[in-house]
């Protein structure tokens, strides 16, 4: 039987997701190196390496039946995919941050607020919901820089340990979205390959549960 294609996010999540998959019985060679396509030892899965923000695209179109991607990336786009499992790795949060002087200020009363973010949609949704009028300035990276050079007042970005913020004299003001790596599944594949995909989801789910219990 043809292996199912699994889109992996290059970078931060890649190793953690591969380890999880190995624990679920889908081991890969220790050294996948720079390969863009490789299989697991059981022949069930074929992995493709993709830019994290491209993972949902591969899955929505069915070019990959499954994928793993951060909830932050998933919610920033508008993808129609199934999200059967939170993988409980890559834990972080989308937060509003800024210089310490902004702590405790009522943002609704700050007209002309400028906020730098790599997540314009989520940032905008957050401000709309809070009744805050803010101009979102889109940046593709190093968002922490924006307040110090006067590009923006605040920023909305992913925070893991908070170290990067601290190094730039910034503090976390509010959590917008707690994030983790999500297992995503193409809608058609879920029906066309139902039992095979259910098997993968349930094995991964067992690993996630086992790990959670071990943590407690």
């Amino acid at each position, binding site marked *: 039987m043809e292996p199912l294609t699994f889109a992996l996010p290059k970078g931060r999540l890649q190793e953690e997701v591969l380890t999880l998959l190995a624990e679920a019985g889908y081991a890969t060679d220790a050294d996948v190196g720079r390969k863009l396509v490789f299989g697991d030892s059981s022949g069930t899965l074929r992995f493709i390496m993709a830019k994290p923000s491209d993972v949902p695209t591969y899955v929505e179109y069915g070019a990959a039946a499954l994928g793993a991607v951060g909830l932050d990336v998933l919610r920033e786009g*508008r993808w129609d995919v199934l999200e*059967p499992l939170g993988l409980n790795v890559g834990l972080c949060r989308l937060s509003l941050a800024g210089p310490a002087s902004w702590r405790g200020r009522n943002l609704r009363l700050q007209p002309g607020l400028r906020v730098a973010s790599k997540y314009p949609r989520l940032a905008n949704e957050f401000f709309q919901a809070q009744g805050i009028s803010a101009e979102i300035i889109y940046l593709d990276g190093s968002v922490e820089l924006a307040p110090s050079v006067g590009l923006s007042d605040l920023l909305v970005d992913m925070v893991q340990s908070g170290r990067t913020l601290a190094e730039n004299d910034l503090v976390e003001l509010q959590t917008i979205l707690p994030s983790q790596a999500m297992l995503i599944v193409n809608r058609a594949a879920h029906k066309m390959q139902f039992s095979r995909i259910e098997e993968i989801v349930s094995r991964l789910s067992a690993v996630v549960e086992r790990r959670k219990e071990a943590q407690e």
Partner: protein
Amino acid sequence: MDSTELRRQRPLGLTDLFGEQAAAYAALERALIEQFERWGYQLVVVPTIGYDQALSTQASPRLNEQLYRFFDRDGHALALRPDMTVPVARLVGTTLYDQPLPLRLYYAGKVFRYEQPQAGQRREFTQVGIELIGAGSAEADAEVTAVAMEALRALGVDTFQINLGEVDFLRGIIDGLELSVEELAMLEQAINRKSRVEIRHALDTLHISGQAGEAIMALPGLCGGLGIIAEARQLTANPAAQRALDHLARVYDLLALDGYADHLILDLGEVRSMDYYTGISFHGYVAGLGFHVLSGGRYDRLVGHFGPSLPAVGFAMSIERSLLVAHTPTVRKLDLVLPACDHPACHRVAALARSLGLRVETELLGRSGAAWAAQALAHGATHAIVRCDGEQCELVEPGGSRTLTLSALLEEVPTWSR
């Protein structure tokens, strides 16, 4: 972009079809129509434009956001139809409501949606589908689902699946919780994504706990064969939810009777557009395509917006999406090419061939002779006449050329038809 540039462009999300694609488009539409007629469905043709009031208020909220709207000269808001179901429901509610029931109607037409072109979606596309009106039974649901199965089979693919849900199960579970439209939409979205993380979050936010909460948490897992119905029965005591399960089981049994069980997946987590669907809802998938090619369900409240209330169930298939996987027939080649010719014999041969359904092309650019005939054959024509007077005709075929009398040629032409 200035206007001289626009002149040469198509607006985003629209497309041209030609050659094999256009042939495949027409062939698929024809195949589906033939299928619908075999089940006794009859054609209805409805206008492309309607009053905004008629089209938008009854459409699902998602479609409502995607309407192309404009005004007529009297200042009335008009819209291009975003689907075929609402105009057909209007026709039935206002005009056909007192005809012998049930009504079996089919349609084929363009619909327009202002949406981000992605995943095979276009802003103008063709929906071909059926509406079965005036029958609220499981038999009616099974019939429409079976026709949908046959529509998928018409694509010429071996593997296809229909994902069958029943929104009344969830509606029964949340009965009495008094959720607002926004709250329900939030829950619906989480369930529809099968995201346990998000469902848990929604339940916490909406303070849903106890048996209802447990039943909702179980929805992503209630997907599979007939076994999930027994599983679902344990989750709720709500009579409406239990009736929904009885109904779904009955539809499943009827479809199994017709041999469709292998192509059917029951999915109680399929809960899209709960404000629109009132019973079963389904999506059709085929191998090789990552998104559905047809969708349908029961909407018993729709016709009542336009006239007497009548139960209705139907589905629509997108031709453009289906073409991404349908087995493309090659464009049928020419059977005969003729040079420009003033002799009545040429015209007799051409007329005879066309009356037999052969494809005949007459040369218009003044070309003739062996080189022209060879070129025509190279493009796939099976016969070329290079010369014909009242008595002798010279015929070129892939095997060579020969001369025969006009009467012999007229006798031979019928043998060319396939």
